[in-house]
Structure formats: structure tokens, C-alpha cells
């Protein structure tokens, strides 16, 4: 027996002795367990891990030190020494994070130690949606889950629906294999943070499966169209690093960024110039730029364009495009000229606020890179890293799935919150006979399920994940390094147990075999585990699995050109005169960060608001409606209304109302819940090819409710009350 076992037995026995002997509550505390690894009190240890705060897949290193917590067993209090996570930093070996980390990543510790984490499995007691659960045991929970699942499987396995997150890796693969063993359809992803439009555009134009990677650090002139890549987009840390290098990382070159977006986003703020586009006008903008590049002979590879696409560009009219965008035509021409004349031009396009015509806009913008000849070149757009295509759930509009589901699994998906009320997700969830959530938290969607089977926190589990964006082959590998805090279980194990209960053979694929798909030949696995993953140089790999997947489908644009239809909006302009743009917030992204107190008290980058995000209204609309900073306003769409404090935004486009996503949770713990959810009032407008929610397609009207100052700002509004008018 080694020292560890000795202590375990000794302390448990002595604790038992003490409780047996005294028969009363102990005043003094006894250390119960020695942590599994040799933790020296006061000395730190660093372990590699995966940041779980967004699906980008940054590798991190975690500082672990001894700590103590008080636990209760049989009504008695004991002090337990545990290995506690103190700080998260980026993994310096990771080519995505490069040793850096964003605000949400730093807050990962608060997610791990959140007081509202589920302590163990629970099953529903009260009616759906009331979040009335009582604790149960794993054996019982798994037995119930398996029994019901077996029934559905035998009746009609196509009615088993698994909604999961967009991250590719061992977990996604395990889920896919589980469903395969059941004979059920593959898992579906319906998350805002999947960026399905960007993926689809990349597939159609470049033939890649996955998100394109923009080599911003080697570009000289970057034109961003619609993508808040520095704020919260496909990979915030990666692109911020790229941006820093783009600006001041080269001795003789300073990159120039122009951001064309319908909102003064973080990227627009950091840019050298912001071209304010009216919502939905990214398409005419991109077409006009392409037209000017071609007409002024600045396109490097015009012959690379398919003819229908060439025609779409040629037929674009810069004057009317400028009008559609709300820009001055000369400015449009100047931007095109600057882009075309640059030695290393790059167009970064995305749909931070998707519209109904966003796919066409993204396709047009992607063809701009083709025109400029920077595809696959330094300073241009690169294919997605290998591994991000196969091992993930495909994006699909899950509403029809929910309609006919008889059994629902939720893992990393919160559709009740992220979909509009008009889509009726809550009702649909309520009608599904059996539903299970693996989330470590009781969120808005978990409130409607029958069984809570909480997963470990990402920092407590093992996984192999392919980052969404990386400059070369990359995989983040984590092995468990701290004891799980509560009675949680890794979802793969739970699925295996359920399968076993049903008599099916299913074993989750080990992280190693998933990771090895992209590792070069002869890469020692121990080294990968020790480093926390593998990150290769672009193009340096040799294993066949390390090539990016290519789409074999033909591009619709290549055959039928680019659909120039303008964006469609729900709501009569006379009744609802304002555009409405919910956007992924820096603090909460799609709302998942709302249960983190650091994020709630982080001053919002736009308004410095804390504990509740405002509606951002432009100065002209605010003046017309008599709305002052902090007033409570009602935002009304054809499908509902929300009430939130107003922020009079000096840089908002007239007629465009924006609001960060993240407030208004009905269930998500004690820190979430304040504010309003802008997604709830959206119209059920979907982009027709991908089925993605068109976040920006709802028109609204505003009315002032009252002067109650509910806006909590860290800094005074810099336009307000300077009697000397400081600006």
C-alpha cells in the first residue's frame, strides 16, 4: 500500500471513529482526503487544459494549488483539502491562443466554481419549465434514461434528437457514435456560435469544409465586412493576436484595417476607418467593391471567377450600392482602390448579425479574396485546420427536429434562450415525452427537461478538441488533473452506461485515437499529453488525416451567380421603423457567460454597463423620442417586447438599434437573470440555405417607459452632463 492509500484509509477510519465515538457534531475540522496528485501546500503546478468558455478551442494552462473547502457528509462538516484551480492562462505552445487569453477565458474559473453548478443528477418533480428538480442517484437516473430511450429506439429511432454544440473533437465523435449505435439520426447543432453562414460560404466558394482562417498578421490592408472578428467571432484570441502583429508586429509595415459593419463594434473601434453599412447592405457593398476591383483592373486573378459570378460583379452599380449602404460613393471607390492597390490585401467577411441575404454577401466577399489572389497565400485566407470538419455535429435548423422528437438530449445547447419566443421552443420542449440535459448548469432549456445528468466542467474532464480556427493542424488534448468538485460524470461515460443498460455495444472513442487523426507520423503521444495538445506549422504535416477536408459539392454561385436580393425584414416599416441588431456580447457571447459574476460586473465595452445590458439607440432617434441615457424603454417587435434601459450611443447608425445578447435568462443561476433577452422578440426568419436564424431581420419600435435609471454604468456617459461639454 502506498502513502496515498494509507492516508485515505487512515483518515476515513479515524473520521469514522470520531463520529462513532462522540455521536455529536464536531467543532474542529478534520482533513478527509489527500488529493490524488502530490500537491505541495503553497507550491503551484501548471497543467494544460482546454478553455471551455466558447467553442473556439483555445489551449490553456491552469495553475493548481492546494486549497480547502468545507463539505457536508451525513450532516457533519468536514474540511477537505483539494487541488484548486487558481488561474487560467493561455498555453504558450498553442498556435491559437499563443499564451494569451480573452476576458471570458479568464472567467473560466468562475464557471468551474460557480455556486449554481449542479451537484449531481436530478430528476424533474414539478411541471416543465418550473425548474423544480430533486436529487437522484446516478444508477437510478441512468436506468430511467435508458429505459425510456430503449422504448423510443424500438418504436422509431429517428425520433431521438441530440442537440449539441459546434465543437469538433472526441466528445462530438462519441455522441455521433452513440447515436449511430442506437440507429438514431446524427447529432444536430443549432448554435449561433457555429457560424453556419461563414462555413457555407467557405464551402461554396473555396470548397472547404470548416471555417476559413484569415492570415491577418501578414496582410497589409484588411477590409472587414460584417465580421466583428476582434470582438467575439470565430476565434477572438487568435484574431486579436493576429491584429496586434498586423499593426505593430513588423518593423516597416503597419497594417491598415477598414471595417464595414452595421454597428460600431470592437473591430470597428479598433479599425483605422469604420464604414457604417445599413443592415443587410453587406451584399451590395461586396458586389460594388468587386465591380470596382474588376473595372479598375486591380483584380489579380479575375480569371479565377466563374462566369456567373463575374457577371454578378460586373452588373453591380457602385452608385446604387453606395445608396443602399448609406455610404458616400466616393468613399466606396476609395476603399476599393485602397484594397486593390495594397501589396497584401485581405477581405475578412462574416455575419456577426446574420441577415436573410448574408450567405450571398459572404459568397461575394469570399470571391473578393479569390479576385485578389490571396487564397492560400501569406496574408490571405487559408483553409480550415484539419479535423474541424468530420468530428462535429452538422448545423441544422432543429425546429422540425423538435417537432417530432420523442426523446431529446441537450448538451451544450440552450435553444430556449438562443431562439426567439416566436419559434415556440419552450412549448416544443414541453411536449417531448422524455428529455435529458448534460449541462453542468440548470439553464433556460434544462428547466424543461426530465433528467439532469450534469457533465464535468471542461476543466475537470478529458477531451480532445480541434480548434475552429488555427494556422495549421491543431488538436487540444486534456486529461483530468483535478478531482471533479461534485458528483458529476463525463457525458461519454454516461452515454456508455446508458448504452450498456440497453444492451448495446458502444464505447466512447478515446481522445488519443481522435487526436491521432491529425498528428504527424511518429509524434510521441506522451509529448502531446504533456504539452496539452499538438500544434503544427501550416503545411508542414505529412499525415493524410491532416489535410483539410474539401467539399465535393459544386458551388451554386458557380452555376447561377450571386443572388442579389436585398435582405428581408419582418415587420412593416411604418409600424416598426427601426432596425434591430442583437449581437454576441463580449461578456456573455450568446448568453452562456451570464452566470459569471466577473462578466456581470465587467463594464460593457460600449456603454460601460454592468449587471444588465442596455438597448443602444442612436442620438437622433433618442432625441426624437425624448429618450435620455438610462431611461427605461420598450423594444417592441411584431413578436413581442422587452424592456431595457437605454444607452444613447454616439456612434450608432441612425435608425439602427443594437443590443448585446446575454441578459434576461429565466434560469441560469443567481448572477444571470437581470436585463432582457433581445433574441426573445425576434421574428422566426431563417436564412434559406442554412436555416440559421437571421438575427438582424426583425424590425422594432421604441417607446419610453419611464425615467427610472436602471442603467448601471461604471463610467459616466461621456456625452452627458459635462457642463463644459467634455468630449
Amino acid at each position, binding site marked *: 500500500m502506498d502513502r496515498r492509500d494509507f492516508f485515505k484509509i487512515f483518515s476515513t477510519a479515524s473520521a469514522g471513529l470520531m463520529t462513532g465515538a462522540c455521536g455529536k457534531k464536531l467543532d474542529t475540522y478534520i482533513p478527509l482526503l489527500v488529493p490524488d496528485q502530490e500537491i505541495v501546500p503553497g507550491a503551484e503546478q501548471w497543467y494544460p487544459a482546454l478553455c471551455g468558455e466558447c467553442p473556439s478551442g483555445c489551449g490553456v494552462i491552469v495553475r493548481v494549488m492546494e*486549497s480547502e473547502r468545507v463539505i457536508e457528509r451525513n450532516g457533519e462538516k468536514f474540511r477537505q483539502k483539494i487541488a484548486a484551480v487558481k488561474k487560467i492562462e493561455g498555453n504558450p505552445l498553442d498556435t491559437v491562443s499563443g499564451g*494569451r487569453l480573452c*476576458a471570458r477565458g479568464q472567467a473560466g474559473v468562475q464557471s468551474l466554481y460557480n455556486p449554481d453548478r449542479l451537484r449531481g443528477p436530478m430528476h424533474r418533480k414539478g411541471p416543465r419549465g418550473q425548474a423544480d428538480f430533486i436529487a437522484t442517484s446516478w444508477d437510478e437516473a441512468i436506468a430511467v434514461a435508458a429505459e425510456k430511450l430503449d422504448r423510443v429506439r424500438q418504436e422509431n429511432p429517428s425520433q431521438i434528437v441530440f442537440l449539441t454544440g459546434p465543437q469538433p473533437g472526441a466528445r462530438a465523435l462519441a455522441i455521433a457514435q452513440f447515436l449511430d449505435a442506437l440507429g438514431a439520426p446524427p447529432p444536430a447543432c443549432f448554435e449561433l456560435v457555429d457560424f453556419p453562414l461563414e462555413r457555407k460560404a467557405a464551402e461554396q466558394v473555396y470548397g472547404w469544409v470548416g471555417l476559413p482562417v484569415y492570415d491577418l498578421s501578414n496582410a497589409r490592408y484588411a477590409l472587414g465586412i460584417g465580421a466583428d472578428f476582434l470582438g467575439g467571432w470565430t476565434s477572438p484570441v487568435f484574431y486579436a493576436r493576429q491584429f496586434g502583429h498586423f499593426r505593430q508586429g513588423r518593423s516597416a509595415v503597419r497594417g491598415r484595417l477598414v471595417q464595414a459593419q452595421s454597428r460600431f463594434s470592437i473591430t470597428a473601434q479598433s479599425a483605422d476607418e469604420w464604414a457604417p453599412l445599413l443592415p443587410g447592405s453587406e451584399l451590395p457593398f461586396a458586389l460594388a467593391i468587386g465591380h470596382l476591383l474588376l473595372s479598375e483592373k486591380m483584380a489579380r486573378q479575375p480569371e479565377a471567377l466563374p462566369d456567373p459570378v463575374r457577371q454578378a460583379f460586373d452588373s453591380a452599380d457602385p452608385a446604387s450600392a453606395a445608396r443602399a449602404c448609406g455610404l458616400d460613393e466616393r468613399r466606396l471607390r476609395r476603399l476599393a482602390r485602397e484594397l486593390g492597390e495594397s501589396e497584401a490585401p485581405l477581405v475578412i467577411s462574416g455575419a456577426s448579425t446574420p441577415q436573410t441575404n448574408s450567405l450571398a454577401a459572404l459568397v461575394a466577399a469570399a470571391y473578393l479574396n479569390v479576385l485578389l489572389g490571396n487564397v492560400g497565400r501569406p496574408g490571405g485566407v487559408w483553409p480550415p485546420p484539419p479535423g474541424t470538419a468530420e468530428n462535429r455535429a452538422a448545423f441544422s435548423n432543429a425546429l422540425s427536429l423538435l417537432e417530432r422528437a420523442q426523446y431529446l438530449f441537450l448538451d451544450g445547447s440552450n435553444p430556449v434562450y438562443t431562439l426567439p419566443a416566436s419559434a415556440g421552443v419552450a412549448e416544443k420542449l414541453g411536449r417531448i415525452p422524455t428529455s435529458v440535459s448534460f449541462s453542468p448548469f440548470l439553464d433556460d432549456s434544462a428547466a424543461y427537461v426530465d433528467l439532469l445528468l450534469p457533465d464535468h466542467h471542461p476543466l475537470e474532464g478529458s477531451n480532445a478538441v480541434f480548434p475552429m480556427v488555427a494556422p495549421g493542424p491543431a488538436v487540444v488534448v486534456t486529461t483530468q488533473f483535478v478531482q471533479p*468538485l461534485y458528483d458529476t460524470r463525463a457525458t461519454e461515460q454516461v452515454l456508455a452506461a446508458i448504452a450498456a443498460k440497453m444492451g448495446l455495444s458502444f464505447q466512447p472513442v478515446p481522445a488519443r485515437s481522435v487526436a491521432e487523426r491529425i498528428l504527424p507520423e511518429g509524434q510521441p503521444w506522451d509529448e502531446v499529453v504533456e504539452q496539452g495538445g499538438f500544434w503544427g506549422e501550416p503545411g508542414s504535416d505529412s499525415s493524410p488525416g491532416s489535410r483539410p477536408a474539401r467539399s465535393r459539392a459544386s458551388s451554386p454561385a458557380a452555376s447561377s451567380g450571386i443572388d442579389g436580393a436585398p435582405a428581408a425584414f419582418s415587420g412593416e416599416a411604418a409600424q416598426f421603423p427601426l432596425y434591430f441588431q442583437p449581437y454576441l456580447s463580449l461578456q456573455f457571447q450568446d448568453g452562456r457567460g451570464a452566470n459569471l459574476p466577473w*462578466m456581470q460586473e465587467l463594464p460593457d465595452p460600449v456603454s460601460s454597463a454592468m449587471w444588465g445590458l442596455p438597448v443602444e439607440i442612436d442620438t437622433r432617434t433618442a432625441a426624437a423620442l425624448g429618450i435620455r441615457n438610462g431611461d427605461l424603454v420598450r423594444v417592441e417587435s411584431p413578436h413581442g417586447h422587452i424592456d431595457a434601459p437605454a444607452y444613447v450611443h454616439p456612434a450608432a447608425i441612425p435608425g439602427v438599434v443594437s443590443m448585446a445578447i446575454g441578459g434576461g435568462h429565466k434560469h441560469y443561476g443567481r448572477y444571470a437573470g437581470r436585463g432582457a433577452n433581445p433574441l426573445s422578440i425576434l421574428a422566426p426568419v431563417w436564412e434559406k440555405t442554412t436555416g440559421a436564424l437571421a438575427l438582424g431581420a426583425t424590425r422594432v419600435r421604441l417607446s419610453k417607459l419611464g425615467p427610472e435609471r436602471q442603467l448601471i454604468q461604471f463610467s459616466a456617459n461621456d456625452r452627458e452632463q459635462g457642463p463644459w461639454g467634455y468630449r
Partner: protein
Amino acid sequence: MGVQIMAEQPAPTASHRWGMAIDLDRCTGCEACVVACHAENNLPVWNPTEAARGRTVHWIRVDRYYEGEFPDIKVKYMPVLCQQCDEAPCEPVCPVYATYRNPEGLNVQVYNRCVGTRYCGNNCPYSVRFFNFFPPQWDAPLELQHNPDVAVRMVGVMEKCTFCIQRIQRAKLDAAADGRPLADGEIKPACVQSCPAEAMVFGDLNDPESKVSRLAASGRATRLLEDLGTKPKVFYLQRAK
């Protein structure tokens, strides 16, 4: 014998003068530095009521100022933290010497000595000093995250950015144990380490070859409220054109 061993210790190196350079051309205003500081230094988090009363504590914050009118509108934003002034106005006014400048140029806040007159908070022109109006508290088990290298301040004392003095101390101890001088860039306060755009640089201003010294001497370097004569040691590199 003991005296002999003492004599063999390496002579103390020239004293350091810690400074920071923040490149506003790289900074995106993402506030990763703000949260990293919270995590490293056991900063308290309050609640909506206290936040509404202006009691939130952010040792580093991102200030934003708009210039112009839409559509020709620009925003200037910059991370503001304790400037560790050489002529700090907060130091002479503390009646109990709870804040003073240490030999390495750091403006040190001694929590044990502070009685909470808050004079230093009034006299800081950068408003980077914070007061603990209530005993800080964390809903269990959030306190498991506390950094044991940093004190948790009690009610009634002032606090502010320390340039992560605990990291400086640790690096100096490690270097002394290894018998080598500190390398430039070896010490990274939490904000500097986290910044994704690599906009923040920390180092020794006494070393003319250090990155921070070279950046501080560059044409783009300015300091905040320089005309007040506080001689801050945080250099802001203005956004280039």
C-alpha cells in the same frame, strides 16, 4: 562558516525601476486585462445595488472617449491602471504611511497600515484607487479560486494595482535561487500576460535595452496627464496614422 557562505552570495544587482508600455495601436479594448487582474488579485465582486452606487473595483479599466459626430466618429480607448508615479500625489497625503514608493519605483499599498482616510483616493488624478466599503465576500465555492500569493483586503482599506508585485517577487526569488539575473520580459503582470493583442509590455526602465525602455523612448510614447507632474511610469504608445 555561516559568514563565509553569506559572503559567497551573489552581489545584489542594480535596482530595478518597473514600468509598463501599452501600445494603443494594438489594443482592441477587449478587457481581457480587466478580468485577468480580477482573477490574479482576488478583487471583490459586488452586486447590482453596490455597482449602481459606484463601488465596483477594477484595478485596471478601459476608458473610452468619443470624438466627433456620426458618421465621422472615432473613439479613443485606453487601459488605465495605477501609473506608479515617480512623484505620486497619493503618497505624501497618507497619514499612516500606508502608501509609499519602494526602491524599485513601485507605489506600494500596505493594507495593514491603512486606516481608511481615503485621502489618497482623492488625490490620485487618475482615479485608480479603490476603497473597500464592505467586507468582500464570495459565494462559496468561488473563494477556492483565490490566489494565495495575494492578500484578501478587509473592509476599510484602500487598494489599487500593484503591478502584480507578487509576480515580481516570485521572479526575483526564482532568479536568485537559480543564480542568474532577471531576463527582460520574464515578469508579466496578469494583464500583460493575458492581453491577446500583445499590447502591453512590462519591464525594467533602468535597463536601456529592455523592450519597455525602448518603447518608452519611441516617438509614439506619451503619458497620461503628464502636465500634472506626477511622472507616471506607464507609457502609452499612441495609435499611429
